[in-house]
């Protein structure tokens, strides 16, 4: 059974100008011990998909459709009253499902000691004393590579460097051995050298724990190093999904192909020009129901701006939603 199963999830944000459809009909699964990469540019809905699953959408956001199951247990907001959902999620968050956030400088509470923040999820979900929780916290800090955890426990976030804070955030996520860990661009806000260290840590932890990990990023290079499978998101939809090999060596969607041509490879001997994708992502406010990438796609056809393409299955693991794969469009994509 999949650790996390999301089916036809849609999320909207109500604004004065209308509904912003941030997530549109997204489905995916994460198995035990698997790392799923979710790639897309800013505003593609990748973070909001995760906030929908965690039930942490901001006030005007709402999951309008879809089923979410964690380890077989239904946690779709539509099946509970708001009050029941909140108390259910309080028992799930940090326990079955935990999140690693983007910016370590802003996600730790500046006025609480590191120890207080680290033992909080342990005390929330386990029937242990404060001393036992602290012992567990020290063990966690060792695990994520923080030297002299006994003294660090009594310090405040401002006494930690960015990389060290991110390790603390990772330790908080690991505190209750969650079934699913969602890492929302965990390296974006860090220096390049620290990025590598944190990625190493996550890759190392991946082998040690058997949680499913979802890695959100807009950096394909990051994904290549640790992900088993990859979902490419664009305009609130998953446009292509496959194993890392399938995505990197046999990309089908023009957007994926565009993304891959934006990666520089220092090992290549020939100088290759990078090709940025012209244009900007679609406005998700009152978005029309046709392929979201059509307006920027070099190979766009008439049909692309009329209807949403259907998903085509290339292999057991590889799917792509693009009109170019339609039998009538043969040869147009070359």
């Amino acid at each position, binding site marked *: 059974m999949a650790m996390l199963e999301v089916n036809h999830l849609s999320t909207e944000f109500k604004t004065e100008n209308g509904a912003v459809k941030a997530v549109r009909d997204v489905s995916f699964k994460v198995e035990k011990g698997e790392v799923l990469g979710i790639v897309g540019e800013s505003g593609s809905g990748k973070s909001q998909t995760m906030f929908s699953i965690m039930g942490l959408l901001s006030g005007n956001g709402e999951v309008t459709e879809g089923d979410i199951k964690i380890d077989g247990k239904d946690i779709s907001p539509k099946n509970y009253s708001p009050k029941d959902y*909140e108390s259910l999620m309080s028992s799930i*968050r*940090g326990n079955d499902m*935990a999140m690693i*956030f983007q910016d370590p400088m802003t996600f730790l*509470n500046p*006025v*609480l000691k590191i120890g207080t923040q680290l033992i909080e*999820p342990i005390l929330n*979900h386990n029937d242990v004393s404060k001393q036992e929780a602290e012992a567990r916290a020290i063990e966690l800090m060792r695990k994520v590579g923080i030297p002299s955890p006994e003294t660090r426990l009594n310090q405040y976030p401002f006494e930690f460097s960015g990389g060290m804070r991110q390790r603390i955030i990772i330790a908080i996520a690991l505190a209750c051995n969650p079934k699913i860990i969602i890492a929302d661009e965990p390296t974006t806000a860090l220096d390049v050298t620290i990025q590598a260290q944190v990625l190493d840590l996550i890759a190392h932890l991946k082998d040690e724990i058997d949680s499913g990990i979802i890695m959100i990023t807009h950096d394909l290079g990051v994904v290549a190093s640790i992900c088993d499978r990859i979902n490419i998101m664009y305009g609130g939809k998953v446009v292509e999904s496959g194993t890392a090999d399938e995505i990197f060596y046999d990309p089908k969607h023009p957007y994926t192909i565009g993304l891959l041509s934006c990666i520089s490879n220092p090992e290549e001997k020939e100088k290759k020009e990078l090709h940025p994708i012209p244009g900007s992502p679609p406005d998700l406010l009152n978005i029309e129901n046709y392929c979201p990438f059509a307006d920027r796609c070099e190979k766009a056809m008439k049909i692309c701006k009329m209807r949403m393409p259907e998903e085509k299955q290339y292999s057991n693991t590889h799917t792509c939603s693009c009109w170019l794969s339609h039998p009538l469009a043969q040869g147009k994509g070359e």
Partner: protein
Amino acid sequence: MFKYIVKRVLIGFITLFILATATFFLMKITPGSPFSAEKYKSPEALAAAKAKYNLDKPIMEQYVLYMSDLAHGDLGESMVHQGNTVWYYIKHGFPVTARLGVVAFILSVFGGISLGAAAALSKKKWINNLCMIVATIGVSVPSFLIAMLLIIVFGVELKWLPFVGLTKPANYILPAISLSLYPIAMIARLTRSSLLEVMKQDYIILARSKGTPYKKVVIKHALKNAMLPVITYCGPMFAFLLTGSFVIENAFSIPGIGKTFITCVTDRDYTVIMGVTIFLGIIIITFNLLSDILSAMIDPRIKLK
């Protein structure tokens, strides 16, 4: 921390020196004299009184004499009610005012924070509107009007509560409410805006992602951060409440220091004016320092240097 406090105390003394000097000369510039014509009919008596209080000497000499007395801790004695020391006025007026001030302060802090938090966190719009209406009234309606209104409604018409003096606990209710309405309104507005800001912060999301229930997130993670601007306001506000309000003390016939202060100004009772001003100055400086120390205790990032 210790160095910081010593430094602040030294700065406090300099502030007091400037305050005393400015008050001294302003007082001398103002027309009038503590010796009324009815009381001192003969010029000899007037001259004798002036000589007793050094008022016959040049103004600079008076200043030096007063400051050297002050440096020895001697505030002198009243020029109008001879035989009463200035300390006597402070000793009798201040405790009355302070008792009322403490009650009003507690009321302000609890009332203001709960009102502001309710306005910020409630999902029902009318609660937010109600809190903000109360806050706007509190800021804009002058306290004497509220005092009069409370006296007429609850004292005179309904006869529920006493409104003269401060003899019984029930006597505190009306003056404390009139005194604290303005600070309640200010604290409510500060708490509301600061809490709304804090609830948007990333660390609130992280706290919720740990499975911490909403109420606990507010109390443990949000309130502590949101209280910083409130504490900065509370220090001077407490000093203001302790130093008394002439209007309120007059309306409820409370023999506090605020009333003493105004009486001595109208009487041109030079020594009492000086003494009370310096005393109130000390209180205000002390509470400003205390609120800074408290802020640093709550927010570890604030380094007191």
